[in-house]
């Protein structure tokens, strides 16, 4: 991922990256794990919770927030989780079939392919954010009042943390079969912890704290504060930063190209 000369990408590097970007984008459309789950699932969930919210709006567990208010951050985080957990599906496969190794015989290091895949996935995540925020406010009337600074900080930390976890599963999964198993486990655990089935405010004391300090729950909590124009608790931001560092270092430490 480091440019070969100075800090500026040479013309050749740019041409190489552009070609890779084109191919990875096309493959992401043809193998729409990230697209389907990262955009499709949040869109469906948004409609489900939006409709629930319209029927039984009001004060969830004394939080002063409606169902759709609480679920906008959760659905955004679920989008990140879906995209990040689709990383092993393609990257472990590309490693197992020798594609990454094949790339490494060319003048382009396979880390470029990974970087480009992350760019494609970031674009998907951005699209998901726009869809969920716009849908949540415009269609289902969540009275969001975004604090742009904390919103960006929370989203950046949430994406970094969850993508780092996705890359860690890529690093650790020894095979496609293992990747599928790990992916399923991580996916549903994070979905739960992000509040899909029960929101932390509805949960009892130990579970609520577990959720708040889990990778998914902390991300949802930070975004929840930011969309209601408040500073997220420092402990939540530190939790996110801590997970990002741990997952990130472990992913780098154990990553294999072949």
């Amino acid at each position, binding site marked *: 991922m480091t440019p070969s000369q100075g800090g500026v990408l040479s013309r050749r590097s740019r041409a190489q990256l552009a*070609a890779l970007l084109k*191919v990875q984008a096309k493959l992401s459309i043809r193998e729409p794990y990230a697209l389907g789950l990262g955009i499709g699932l949040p869109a469906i969930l948004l409609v489900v919770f939006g409709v629930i919210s319209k029927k039984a709006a009001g004060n969830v567990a004394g939080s002063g927030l409606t169902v759709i208010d609480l679920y906008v951050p959760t659905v955004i985080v679920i989008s990140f989780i879906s995209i990040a957990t689709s990383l092993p599906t*393609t990257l472990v496969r590309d490693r197992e079939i*020798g594609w990454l*190794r094949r790339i490494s*015989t*060319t003048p382009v290091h396979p880390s470029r392919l990974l970087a480009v895949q992350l760019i494609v996935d970031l674009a998907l995540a951005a699209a998901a954010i726009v869809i969920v925020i716009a849908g949540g406010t415009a269609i289902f009337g969540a009275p969001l009042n975004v604090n742009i600074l904390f919103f960006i900080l929370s989203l950046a930390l949430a994406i970094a943390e969850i993508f780092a976890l996705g890359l860690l599963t890529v690093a650790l999964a020894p095979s496609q079969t293992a990747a599928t198993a790990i992916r399923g486990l991580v996916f549903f655990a994070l979905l739960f912890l992000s509040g899909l089935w029960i929101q932390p405010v509805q949960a009892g004391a130990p579970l609520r704290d577990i959720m708040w300090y889990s990778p998914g729950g902390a991300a949802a909590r930070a975004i929840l504060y930011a969309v209601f124009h408040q500073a997220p608790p420092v402990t939540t931001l530190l939790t996110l930063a801590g997970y990002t560092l741990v997952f990130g270092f472990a992913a780098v430490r154990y990553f294999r190209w072949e």
Partner: protein
Amino acid sequence: MRAPKDNTALPRVQRVVDNPRDRRGQQPAVRITNLVKRYGSFVAVDGVSFSIDEGEIFGIIGPNGAGKTTTVECISGLRDPDSGSISVYGLSPQRDRDRIRDLVGVQLQVSALPPRLKVGEALELFAAFYAKPLDPQEVLESLAIKHIERAAFKNLSGGQKQRVSIALALVGNPKIAILDELTTGLDPEARRDTWALIERMRNRGVTVILVTHFMDEAETLCDRVALINKGRVRALDTPEAIAAEAGTTRLRFVPSRPLADQALFAVDGVQVVERKDRFVTVTGTGDLAASLISALAASGVQVSELEATRGNLDDAFIRLTKDTPPAASEGVQP
């Protein structure tokens, strides 16, 4: 990074079969000296040395686990040797990684493309990776796979996948192409087509390093062959010379009058005698034809319809890989 010397420009390459040593004045495309590579306590490559001339089809043959793939992986810079030196057009695969990758096209033994990637897209992608690529369309046409340009990799037949793999190794316009177990799993017709492609590749001036365990492939294609066993070079010569050195010849002929087996076995070097209809076939070592004809002539028998077949590389391979001196393998296998 060092600039490559000027003599890397490709000369018009003519076919060199008989004596590659005639090209001694020229810098070799690849020179390997005392290459050693260990995996833990297992010595995969144990002091391999050879050089490959520009424009050669150079075969690396040997049994499974002999160190063939490791050797070519060191040439392409995929692995770093533990000791010894490798020079590819004067460059080091380890120090000059980027330059080497522009010069060397690789077809890997075990490698597939993402299943939904289309053939044309893969070629365009790889062309974008290299400094002076060939036109992907021309490569597709020259390999007769233009018609599958829009097919996804997962829908290709084994032969088509191999062609795509060769195309990817060529589209970067390499000076050297490393082809590892290229025809494994192909049907006989696809194999012969692939051989023709390799010949054509060389005719364009590309030096080809062919790793194979098919002796007929090495005999048909290779100008010279290194036979590697247990990490060491056992033989390094033309396939013909290696086969000849292992020493069997097969002669089929019609004698001018019936001959007893005994008379044939009396001829120097004859080991096996077979008969079919009028034909007698003898197999043996040494200068078999000369000694047979002169011995039979001495007893007044003429030989007609004489047909000589060399004992093939296969025989040599078996002899050279079985006759491993114990010292060579000591402590090598885990």
